[in-house]
């Protein structure tokens, strides 16, 4: 008991017996999870396993049916003001230019801050462009800049790279990783792409039918070598678990409710 308390006492996000259902259908069932400040967690699973619902709960857009979400020990009751979210479809306002999109939600004019974040995502020379003129990857860069300008302590990424081509996706992955290494906000990435999850996250959580089925720490040094044997076997193992491969049937139990938090691996450049 004491140990559990110690584990969660300095956690940033803490889910306690979290349930969510829509019209009688249970989406999330008894979720328990602690996420440490500055940790990068990826959530993978089949479509409809409740990944996106979990992010919506963390952003405060939805309320849990039962259970609690604690952010810095305080229960989340409304929109989570320290979180920013990035969606698969970017959700830029088409009637605002890049710069105005980035400044959305800020009080007053913040030209300098906006320029800094746009420079960080490599778009400082497209600031007066309409979103409709940008490519998919550039739109997501603007969306990322819009999130970063708020200095979020929690970044929620809802399949932000799902609609991008393979090359742009790799570019964006390393951009997100670089920015995260610099700023160390807690990050939750929901993704279909197991390789992306293993490449970016400190641990990968596998959701299955609304429950945490696996909780896999990825103690590989960064930036991660995708052709490294540990990398490829980890990806393969997680994939097997998602598709219920017979070899892994026996392990399909929520074994990790009191998951010990691993230290973030040292950055190796």
């Amino acid at each position: 008991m004491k140990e559990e308390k110690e584990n969660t006492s300095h956690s940033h996000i803490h889910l306690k017996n979290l349930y969510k259902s829509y019209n009688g259908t249970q989406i999330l069932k008894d979720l328990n999870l602690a996420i440490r400040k500055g940790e990068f967690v990826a959530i993978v699973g089949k479509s409809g396993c409740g990944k996106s619902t979990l992010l919506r709960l963390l952003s405060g857009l939805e309320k849990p049916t039962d259970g609690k979400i604690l952010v810095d020990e305080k229960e989340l009751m409304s929109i989570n003001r320290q979180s920013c979210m990035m969606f698969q479809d970017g959700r830029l306002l088409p009637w605002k230019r890049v710069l105005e999109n980035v400044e959305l939600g800020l009080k007053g004019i913040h030209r300098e801050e906006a320029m800094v974040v746009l420079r960080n995502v490599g778009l400082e020379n497209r600031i007066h462009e309409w979103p409709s003129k940008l490519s998919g990857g550039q739109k997501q860069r603007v969306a990322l800049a819009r999130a970063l300008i708020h200095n979020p302590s929690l970044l929620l990424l809802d399949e932000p790279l799902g609609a991008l081509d393979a090359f742009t996706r790799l570019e964006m992955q390393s951009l997100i990783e670089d920015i995260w290494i610099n700023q160390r906000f807690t990050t939750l990435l929901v993704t279909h792409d197991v390789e992306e999850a293993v490449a970016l996250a400190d641990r990968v959580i596998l959701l299955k039918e609304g429950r945490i089925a696996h909780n896999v720490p990825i103690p590989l040094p960064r930036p991660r070598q995708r052709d490294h044997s540990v990398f490829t076997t980890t990806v393969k193992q997680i994939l097997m678990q998602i598709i219920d491969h017979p070899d892994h049937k026996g392990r399909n139990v929520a074994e990790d409710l009191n998951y010990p938090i691993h230290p973030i691996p040292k950055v190796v450049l």
Partner: protein
Amino acid sequence: MKHSFSSILSKTLPWIVPFSLLLLWQISIKTGILSTKILPAPTDVYFAAIELMKTGELFHHVWVSLWRALIGFFIGGSIGFILGLLNGLFRTTEMLTDTSVQMLRNIPHLALIPLVILWFGIGEEAKIFLVSLGVLFPIYLNTYHGIKSVDQGLIEMGRIYGLNKFSLFLNIIFPGALSSILVGIRFSLGMMWITLIVAETISSTSGIGYMAMNAREFMQMDVIILSILMYAFLGKLSDIIARFLERRWLKWHPGYAKHS
């Protein structure tokens, strides 16, 4: 060279058909193929216009019609816009009024002319009332629909980024509904002129419609055609204004952006 030639061509091309028709018209009148009792020659219409401009009659009638159109458009448009906004934004007013508006919308407003004449006589009120009624529904419907069809994902994003209700409306809902609202404005500008033509033709002592009906009494074919042309001209003018607004306010929209 090639570029300037194609640009001249693209500017002249749309005018070739109307000018040929006009020429054909003039020739068939002057050669007697078409009787002047059916149509006056284009030149006669032109001289009638010059004549009426000299007496000031043309400007007077056009001005009176324009004034009625604008007042009616303003009154009906404002009511339609505000009602559309309220019903698009608030569930309560929507439940309270939408059904009634939809019922009223299906009555052809020109069918009310006998009633309107009994209520207001043939004064200004009758015409302004009819124009207001005519423009109200297109603007109402398109404003309402525009607000209802704003991307929910954008509203959700706005909430996450801490926008309050007012700035959600200002930054997301209204700009999102604007293209639909402008369609309503364009549609109702057409409605405005149609209503005014009918109303002025039936009961009036001034305005373009009156000018046409008065000319009929004296068999002044040229003035009748001139009146019809005035309506066409004013209709086209309002369309140009509406297009200008679309280009200005929807310049972010790839479909409306000026082709360069």
